[in-house]
């Protein structure tokens, strides 16, 4: 074979490979690389969407970090939700999954009952919760009052608003329940039998048989939970609007993160700055911070995973 023929063959082979990769390359470039590069670019520009962008140096960055009063509360809230809401959702989802797999009768009914809330649209679900948890007129506080328990302010109290959002997230646990249930049913029964013969109790069986077997699923649930929470937007903004009763009008601005910025999250700031205040540059700064945080959390979890779980995936 002459070198020319060999080169032509290689070129053809490379083109075929490129052809097969093309859909991914196009998708990656259009939906990942271009937005990422644009975001970095616009974070250094002054751009309102109407006039051409102009160089702004690091002004957007310094504005967000040192002058924008909503950034730090939103970051704190987002971190709180990542740590508390994600953890409780994973633990609760796993608990419900364990419970459902142990039930002998009415399994279908319970599976449906726990899964159904997940299908509720987030806006409708949040509004329903805001009415149920209304401190003055909601049935939950009436019930708590009737049995002599304290009646929290829920979405109207800055110290209770995030726990109320967590409750809402636990109510819609159906997605995690299903994947945990599938993982639990996949654990080989022989391993439980061997552990029992070795005298392992329920906790030891869970710790040394169940957990190592489902560890990849737990990791998946945590990582996707972190990512979803980083993008948490609809529920807090709807809860804040319904609880405050303020739609927003001239001279009557909706309080971001009502009450007292306690439900403010970073995606709300991206929307507010980028789409309502026409400050695309600062919105891009916050979007990049979100991106960096999501990547950092994922990397950290991936690194910690080896130490936590003995079994391989």
């Amino acid at each position, binding site marked *: 074979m002459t070198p020319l023929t060999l080169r032509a063959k290689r070129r053809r082979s490379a083109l075929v490979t490129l052809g097969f990769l093309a859909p991914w390359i196009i998708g990656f470039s259009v939906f990942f690389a271009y937005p990422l590069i644009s975001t970095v670019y616009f974070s250094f520009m002054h751009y309102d969407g109407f006039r051409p962008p102009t160089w702004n140096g690091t002004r957007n960055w310094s504005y967000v970090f040192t002058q924008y009063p909503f950034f730090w509360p939103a970051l704190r809230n987002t971190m709180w939700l990542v740590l508390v809401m994600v953890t409780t959702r994973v633990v609760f989802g796993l608990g419900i999954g364990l419970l459902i797999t142990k039930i002998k009768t009415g399994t279908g009914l319970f599976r449906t009952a726990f899964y159904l809330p997940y299908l509720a649209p987030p806006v409708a679900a949040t509004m329903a919760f805001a009415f149920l948890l209304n401190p003055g007129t909601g049935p939950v506080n009436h019930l708590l009052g009737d049995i002599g328990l304290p009646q929290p302010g829920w979405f109207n109290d800055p110290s209770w608003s995030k726990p109320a959002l967590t409750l809402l997230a636990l109510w819609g646990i159906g997605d995690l329940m299903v994947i945990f249930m599938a993982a639990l049913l996949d654990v080989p029964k022989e391993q439980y039998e061997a552990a029992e013969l070795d005298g392992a109790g329920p906790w030891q069986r869970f710790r040394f048989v169940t957990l190592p077997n489902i560890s990849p699923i737990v990791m998946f649930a945590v990582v996707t939970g972190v990512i979803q929470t980083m993008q948490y937007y609809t529920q807090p903004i709807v809860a804040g609007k319904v609880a405050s009763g303020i739609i927003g009008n001239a*001279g009557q601005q909706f309080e971001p993160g009502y009450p007292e910025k306690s439900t403010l999250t970073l995606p709300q700031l991206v929307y507010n700055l980028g*789409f309502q205040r026409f400050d695309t540059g600062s919105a891009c700064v916050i*979007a990049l911070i979100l991106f960096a945080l999501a990547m950092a959390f994922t990397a950290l979890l991936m690194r910690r995973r080896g130490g936590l779980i003995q079994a391989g995936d």
Partner: protein
Amino acid sequence: MSRLTRLCSFVAAAASISLLAGACTGQSGGQADDDPTKDVTVNFWHAWSQPNELKAINSDIAAFEKVHPNIHVHVVPNVNDDKINQALRTGGSDSPDVVSSFTTDNVGKFCSSGALADLGPLLKKSGIDPAKTFPKPMLDYTAYQGTRCTLPLLGDAYGLYYNKDAFKAAGISAPPRTMSEFKADAVKLTRSQGDSYAQLGFMPDFHGYESTPAHYVAQWSPTYFDAQGRSQTAKDPAFTKMFAFQKDLVNSLGGFTKLEKYRNTFGDEFGAKNPFHTGQVAMATDGEWRLGMARDAGVKFPIGVAPMPVPDDQANTYGKGYITGTIVGVAAHSAKQNAAWELVKFLTTDTNAVVDFSNAIHNVPSTLDALKSPKLVSDPNFKTFLDIAQNPNSNTTPASPNGGQYQVTLQDFAYSYEAGKATDLPTGLRGVDQQVDRDIAQTK
């Protein structure tokens, strides 16, 4: 790196990027020299959504199409400002040529960014003198730093609603005219019940629906910005006096904690269970639309309406109030600006169109001729709002290049101050000014 690690990292990156993609794109538009006598379709986006409102605006548009048979109007109803903002940014054949918005807060943003076309030359070409056509307060809130990019299309005025039965029971013969009378009446009308209220005279908290800092301070005739456009809430005594009054009123009516607890029992502001409808509060500040809402909710007691009281040292300005309204403008990127202007001109300056629209949706007419029109249906309560709208001392929140952000900053401080979390008023207001200036500088 394992496959799972790579997958998770990719999912994380892709999910974050999808959020960024939406925030960071857009383009600007151009100008037009279209012929408005040719056959053309104009896209009109507006926010009205209720059946009576849609019927009224569609009727106005039908009247316009009768006068201009070559201009067809394609209407997109129930559009909020966020959608309008994006449509004005992106342009395109389906984007709006004419937009209307319920809030005046975005006028500064629309004018300074060039999102809406300057209507000054079009008004001149049509021989319309804005000063002789529209009430002055309405002219003020539809322009920004000399650029008139919007016109008023009906207005809203705020006044004091009161329960006449509650007034009678408390021995009050007339609505309060000054702030000290207002406080005295609010106290008289308040009846405690345990750690709550059987009836509250007035909900003074800044979260009490319309009792916002901006609506309160309008009675003190504030000047938010100095000639250089710098925030001056600390310098203008109107703000200090307003905060002092509100604090005193809160304390006189039972204190912030008790009032907030009571506020949490209120129904929806725009629903039948509004606290004024239910008798939970005996007085409320609200716009003229409350008249129709109260009627629709089947309120049993007779309702009285008056201008909001004024500070004791400004008693001669009684009759003023906070005003705002719907605005309408032409998209800067529209290729049919001249045809679009014909529609805007008709909707905002044709006396019959304005009066018919006002009669149908019970808003305040926005032209001087319409306000005097014999066709205007006006009962004594509605007339109160017509008078407030025309009062030369009535005022509104000024336009700003970043919309209502300065109001958010002021409100934010107000919430802390009324809750006792911020105690130093002068320092707090100086902080408001600094933050407002920083936010505006960031926009420029």
